[in-house]
């Protein structure tokens, strides 16, 4: 720090310490993350007053007590935990007409708050969609980020992400040797956290943003290695004879994809209307004719923000509708597998990758208000998967005891309105072991 201070004209240190307790809701189920956790986040920012350069280092550390005793979370202290420890670390160089950022950082594209199809650079926890707890959701990636500003209204961004660093989805190869057996798609597939940066990604992303009096516009294109998991079945062999034999290895795969997106945000007399539309095409399955890999999809999100006055009370509302169209033609699927194995592969993709239905609808709503001059804040976010008949609720309340000290409580709850109690299908995957309530207290410095 002293070395940094020696060359910087300004050094800022920020930090928070948070103590939280998460506990399960369903008495008959053990909540897999039942825990008391101490989190510290420290931020060191240095910059010169002329604004030519700045540097940011953000470190997150956890000490967790759960049924296995004390540990750093999650799991033991591995090389991956070192990556977890450094949440962000990058240097920024500012020139008249462009900026260059190098290091591990977030870049969020898109105009909507939830599940933007333009937001593909940083990986995202698909197991528990982080609709609310953004601190726990996306993870930063190492990158070179160049932004040019030909005019004050126009920004052109280029991002290069060299290495693959998927989220904490635990994956493993599945060795298959079945005779007359049905493939258990859960077996072994989620047992091993991948080590980050084992493989190259060479992902390239570009965006053009234009700001006008009325609207903000953004157009993006990515040719990237999708950090959402797919599976590679190329080694899977079957012999159909006296004995129906399936053998080989199913390995996790992160495939290259094209993503093109368009976003807009318009302010109209107290209303802000935002919309993002994006299309993602797997590079080796552009037309959706392959059964053994993810299919192309078009995702559209429309969001409206509006503050309502209820007497003296101001209520900030956000409402959105999401449509996800998965492009596949079952009749055009090509494979060398037997119908029996095709049905198994289809099941595997359905369960892991959520492409059992071509069209999926979701509604999202958020209500937020505050009392006592913003000391007490209350918020509820709800997401309803219409296609899945699933509901996610995330109520929150926080109270600022002082400028530095706050307490909060909340819950994350999933419901199925129709269908199984527990499923891995869909963005709103219902699993009653995920339901939780929490209380936390936070000190900011």
């Amino acid at each position, binding site marked *: 720090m002293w070395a940094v201070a020696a060359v910087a004209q300004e050094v800022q240190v920020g930090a928070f310490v948070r103590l939280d307790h998460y506990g399960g809701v369903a008495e008959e189920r053990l909540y897999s993350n039942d825990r008391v956790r101490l989190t510290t986040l420290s931020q060191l920012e240095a910059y010169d007053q002329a*604004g030519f350069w700045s540097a940011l280092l953000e470190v997150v550390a956890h000490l967790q007590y759960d049924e296995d005793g004390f540990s750093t979370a999650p799991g033991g202290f591995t090389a991956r935990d070192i990556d977890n420890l450094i949440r962000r670390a990058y240097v920024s160089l500012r020139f008249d007409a462009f900026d260059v950022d190098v290091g591990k950082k977030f870049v969020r594209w898109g105009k909507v708050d939830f599940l933007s199809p333009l937001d593909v650079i940083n990986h995202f926890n698909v197991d528990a969609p982080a609709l609310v707890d953004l601190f726990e959701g996306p993870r930063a990636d190492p990158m070179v980020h160049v932004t040019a500003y030909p005019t004050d209204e126009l920004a052109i961004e280029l991002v290069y992400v060299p290495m693959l660093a998927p989220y904490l989805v635990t994956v493993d190869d599945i060795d298959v040797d079945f005779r007359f057996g049905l493939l258990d798609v859960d077996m072994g597939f989620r047992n091993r956290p991948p080590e980050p940066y084992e493989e190259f990604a060479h992902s390239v992303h570009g965006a053009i943003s234009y*700001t006008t009096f009325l609207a903000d516009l953004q157009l993006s294109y990515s040719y990237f290695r999708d950090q959402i998991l797919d599976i590679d079945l190329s080694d899977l062999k079957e012999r159909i004879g006296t004995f129906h034999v399936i053998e080989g290895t199913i390995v996790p795969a992160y495939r290259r994809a094209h993503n093109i997106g368009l976003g807009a945000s318009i302010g109209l007399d107290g209303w802000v209307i935002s919309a993002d539309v994006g299309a993602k095409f797997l590079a080796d399955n552009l037309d959706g004719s392959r059964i053994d890999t993810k299919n192309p999809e078009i995702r559209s999100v429309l969001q409206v923000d509006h503050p309502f006055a209820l007497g003296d009370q101001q209520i900030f509302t956000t409402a959105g509708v999401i449509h996800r169209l998965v492009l596949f033609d079952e009749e055009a699927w090509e494979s060398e597998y037997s119908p029996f194995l095709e049905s198994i592969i289809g099941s595997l993709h359905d369960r892991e990758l959520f492409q059992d239905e071509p069209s999926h609808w979701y509604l999202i709503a958020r209500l937020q208000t505050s009392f006592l001059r913003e000391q007490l804040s209350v918020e509820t976010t709800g997401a309803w998967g219409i296609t899945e008949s699933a509901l996610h609720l995330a109520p929150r309340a926080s109270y600022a005891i002082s400028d530095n000290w706050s307490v909060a409580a909340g819950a994350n709850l999933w419901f199925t309105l129709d269908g199984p109690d527990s499923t891995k299908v869909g963005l709103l995957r219902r699993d009653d072991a995920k339901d939780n309530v929490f209380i936390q207290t936070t000190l900011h410095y």
Partner: protein
Amino acid sequence: MILRTAALLLAALAAAAPLAAQDAADISARTDARGAAPNISGLLTLTITAPNGDQRVISADSYQKERGEEREDRLFVFTHPPNVRGMALLVHSYMEQGDDSMWIYLPAMDRIKRVDLGSSGGGYFLGSDFTFRDMVSRDQTEYEHALLPADDDAYHVLEVRGRTPELRRVFGYSREEHFIRKDNFLRERIVFYDLAGDLLKELIVEEEYEADGYAFPTRLKMLNHQTGHVSEILFEDISFSADIPDRFFTQRYLRRR
């Protein structure tokens, strides 16, 4: 009013000493012209006091700049308290269009979000007694002015209100009374009435910074008569001379100081 309107057309008139047969619009325009410095930068400290004595203090770096006759930009970068540090608010006020473009940078989400002032002045600014609309420039063509009889001969008293019921709903006030000193055209007090016509708030300018023929309020107190809350704004290190680059008022600078 703590922030001024770009009424530069009448700036030259502002220096004229003797007055005769002025109408209310003239007085308002001369008053606005007194505050129409093209560049203003300073450190803003907002202290919110509840009736029970509880206080919150919010600090921000503040910049504003004339961008021609029809546009004025403002940037607030918050520095205190720690849980809002880094948050920033950018406002482009367009006089002719009668509307503003506003963006907020939320560091926790690392995201810039367009926001829009709704009804009732867009709600209270960070829990203070100032509304968001109190903090941005006014398009005087949206207001009508009338001269009221004054108890104190040292002041002009103007009644100011939105031209239409819809505008009054948007502003959050049925009418305002502005107390303007006759000798120097400084606005020293504003009384706000809510949409039901009841007394709501009172803004008192306690100190002003004057330089280069312009004046800017540096210490203001807003008393909310309905709740008993008090919000005070202190501007320090005020400068009219710093040439603030245009690029400060872009989304690029929302993410950085």
